[in-house]
């Protein structure tokens, strides 16, 4: 296996265009497992971990750009106010894995269980791709993630990062697994309240061929919160039946299968539970005072 070690993004894009068969990798936490187990030995690999262009994040004109080389550890340290993203990052593997694993890797591997992916979906992220000659294009997450471990990336392209409009409002990521750490999700969910647009956005992981949104449940919840007067008044009472019905609608949007980690029926049930809880947390987080989540979560952003 030849290993290409470019020092700049331009150099990397030139190499990728010349050697489209080269596997691009950053932290290598997915690729190395395959190499170690002898599952594959690519002829060529392109190390993009060192490229400074991919290791940055910034907010410009209300849009967050998250470089593909951002590790989960750095997200936890540097972007804690993006609560759901930080929570998802903290649930990835172990400290050792979080020090290496990157957002770009999660996108490139495109596992339905990729922990950051429901957050990107709930935030309506776009994936930024680049190819040689200063050409970039963006795809909305659902046109980039097209199936289990399948993306719409072209062989001569690299993932630059993801970006989305920053919105104000509480949000969370939660997942069901068999233990507390080092676990691949049986079901995962990201819920975000968009206080400015009066929208509820919810995305599911590990319960379909790729990450899924639940548009019908989202519209239901947004209307129900409007009906209860909750958008204008965080203290307004939202009846428990709303949470219950929201959970059921989210579960109905799942397309789970039976596999080694869980049955389809269990996964669907888990979606309902996660959705109900996430909406309750979000509503509680909006409340002022000791009952609420406090300034940190009230100021949360997606």
């Amino acid at each position, binding site marked *: *296996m*030849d*290993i290409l*070690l470019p020092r700049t993004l331009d150099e990397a894009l030139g190499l990728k265009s010349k050697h489209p068969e080269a596997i691009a*990798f950053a*932290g*290598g*936490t997915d*690729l*190395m*497992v395959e*190499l*170690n*187990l002898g599952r594959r*030995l690519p002829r060529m*690999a392109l*190390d993009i*971990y060192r490229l400074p262009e991919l290791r940055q994040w910034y907010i410009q004109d209300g849009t967050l750009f998250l470089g593909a080389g951002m590790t989960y*550890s750095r997200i936890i340290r540097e972007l804690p106010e993006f609560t759901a993203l930080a929570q998802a990052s903290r649930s990835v*593997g*172990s*400290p*050792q*894995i979080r*020090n*290496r694993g990157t957002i770009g890797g999660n996108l490139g591997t495109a596992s339905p269980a990729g922990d950051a992916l429901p957050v990107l979906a709930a935030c309506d992220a776009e994936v930024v791709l680049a190819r040689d000659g200063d050409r970039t294009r963006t795809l909305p997450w659902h046109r980039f993630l097209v199936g289990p471990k399948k993306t719409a990336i072209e062989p001569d392209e690299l993932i630059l990062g993801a970006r989305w409009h920053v919105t104000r409002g509480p949000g969370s990521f939660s997942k069901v697994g068999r233990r*507390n*750490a*080092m676990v691949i999700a049986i079901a995962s969910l990201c819920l975000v309240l968009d206080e400015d647009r009066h929208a509820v956005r919810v995305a599911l992981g590990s319960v379909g061929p790729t990450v899924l949104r639940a548009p019908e449940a989202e519209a239901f919840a947004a209307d129900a919160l409007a009906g209860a007067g909750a958008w204008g008044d965080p203290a307004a009472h939202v009846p428990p039946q709303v949470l219950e019905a929201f959970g059921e609608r989210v579960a109905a949007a799942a397309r789970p299968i039976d596999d080694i980690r869980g049955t389809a029926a269990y996964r669907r049930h888990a979606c309902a539970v996660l959705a109900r809880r996430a909406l309750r947390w979000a509503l509680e987080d909006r409340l002022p005072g000791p009952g609420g989540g406090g300034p940190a979560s009230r100021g949360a952003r997606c």
Partner: protein
Amino acid sequence: MLIRLKVNDEWRTADAGPGASLLHVLREQLGLLGTKNGCEQGECGSCSVWLDGELVCSCLVLAAQAHEREVRTVEALAGPDGLHPVQEAYLEAGAVQCGYCTPGLVVATADLLARNPSPSEAEVREALSGNLCRCTGYVKILGAVHLAAQRLRGRTA
């Protein structure tokens, strides 16, 4: 391919085979057997080392990626005056049984205490969540971490 890396403060050259991991180079090429090979999937943490100051599973680092980088292994912990306080604490607390997981756990513990000298129980458990031990049941290990934290705090106080 030939790579050059700074291991425990000494520049070394190694011939990494195609697709070889940093773990493989450390053990087979450089003779540093303290770093253990447990699972080669990042699941057990026995191969934990520092790469440019960050704790990583060396089995999940392509050796070529360590080219011109700095690696610290468990061998760097003990000094001329003897064992590192974390190593002492593991011995005293009886946190070592078969010993296979010990280097990885010792390294993860030292990493935690360098960042957070007074970790809570939850923080200790999270910091060690990437390291598996199949003998101890973890109780003695958690005791060792708290003992080491106390000692290290006493030292700097």
